[in-house]
């Protein structure tokens, strides 16, 4: 009985030693890179290049790509200043996922730049897509995007535009506000709105519309210079300008 008890003590002791040694040198600020093909180091440029299904991580931040290049500071024992990832890039930062063909992440300024034919940033409450560039400031939590931008909100509501800037919550990355400029098109379940520019506010759940506003619902069309759309009540309001009057074409639905 005593031997059995002692055996358990030894077993526990050995397990404790094993786990202690396993986690003893885990540094949360350590930058880890793995690659299937190769890792290169260029001494003069102070850069590392990981090729072939490369994976990099630092704390909650992780990147997967065909190739990852890490740029080091020029000072002795300095940390990574920024990384560039190319080919099938997937960046995961807590609940936010970014996808692109090229990405640059600056560890000091915490700015992600996504470039290519298609890139996206996706979180629980939104998805931002662009065909040119998305830049995301992780400190200020501001995203700026250009080139056939599409912002999909819960609802579902899709906002299309040439440019969309969005501001996110610093704690859980929820969308606070968004502004769209140039060829704005908003699609909901029941209506399609086009205008020159639009602003979305998550607190009021209102989308304010400006410039050549056209609201199409079923066969009815409302036109004006300014407008609002309440995403809670699904009611829209349209206003005229001094020079232009509000116009409405209403077509009764045939029963």
């Amino acid at each position, binding site marked *: 009985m*005593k*031997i059995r008890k*002692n055996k358990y*003590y*030894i077993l526990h002791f050995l397990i404790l030693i094993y786990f202690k040694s396993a986690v003893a040198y885990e*540094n949360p*600020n*350590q*930058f*880890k*890179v*793995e*690659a*299937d*093909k*190769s*890792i*290169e*180091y*260029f*001494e*003069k440029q102070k850069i*590392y290049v*990981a090729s072939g299904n490369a994976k990099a991580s630092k704390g909650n931040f992780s990147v997967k790509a065909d190739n990852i290049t*890490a740029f*080091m500071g020029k000072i*002795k*024992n300095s*940390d*990574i200043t920024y990384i560039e990832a190319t080919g099938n890039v997937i960046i995961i930062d807590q609940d936010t996922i970014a996808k692109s063909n090229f990405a640059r992440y600056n560890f000091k300024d915490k700015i992600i730049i996504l470039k290519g034919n298609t890139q996206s940033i996706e979180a629980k409450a939104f998805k931002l897509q662009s065909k040119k560039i998305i830049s995301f400031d992780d400190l200020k939590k501001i995203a700026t995007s250009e080139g056939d931008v599409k912002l999909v909100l819960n609802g579902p509501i899709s906002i299309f535009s040439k440019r969309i800037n969005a501001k996110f919550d610093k704690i859980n990355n929820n969308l606070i506000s968004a502004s769209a400029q140039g060829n704005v098109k908003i699609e909901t379940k029941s209506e399609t709105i086009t205008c020159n520019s639009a602003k979305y506010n998550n607190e009021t759940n209102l989308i304010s519309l400006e410039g050549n506003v056209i609201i199409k619902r079923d066969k009815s069309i409302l036109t004006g210079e300014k407008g609002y759309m309440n995403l809670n009540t699904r009611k829209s309001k349209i206003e005229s300008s001094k020079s232009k009057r509000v116009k409405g074409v209403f077509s009764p639905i045939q029963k």
Partner: protein
Amino acid sequence: MKLKLSAKSIFIILIVLIITILTFNYINRNSQLNSQKIQDFDPLKEGKTVGVNIEQNKPNGEKIKIIADLMEENKEEKFIKLINPITEIIKKNNVTKITSNYGYIINNYSKFKLDNNVNIYNSKKQFALKTEELSGMFDTGDMYTNSPVKIKIRNSKIQGSSLSLKNYGEYVKVFGKAKLTID
């Protein structure tokens, strides 16, 4: 008769067992190395020198120092075999130190091949490399190996299954499933 063993005695047995295994391994490895050395060591044979100290000054200002326990020179085929060589390549106060259990200087003394416990160290560059075999050229400082390799450069560590290195570490490429950690 019941066998009673206290935790303390089991610990002592375990520790003694581990120490015995480690000591046995150490003695066994050393005896293997020594037997190899003795087999190769024949100072009476022509072309063999005990306690080697070679210095070579190159026109470009580079200096190569080689210290070894034993040197065997084949003048016909122009190669040198060294036991426990320590090579220092000094280039403008930048010293690269290379050690191994065996070293071969081949191809009209232009290339080298190192075997067993190969280590490269450069304090200025904060560069350290460890592998089991390494081949290279003196002139260019290019090196390569098909053995697993571990490298430490400043605050980073790289490991992989083979290596290609240029100009004593100006460019390093580690092949295979490679890992990099930066602290």
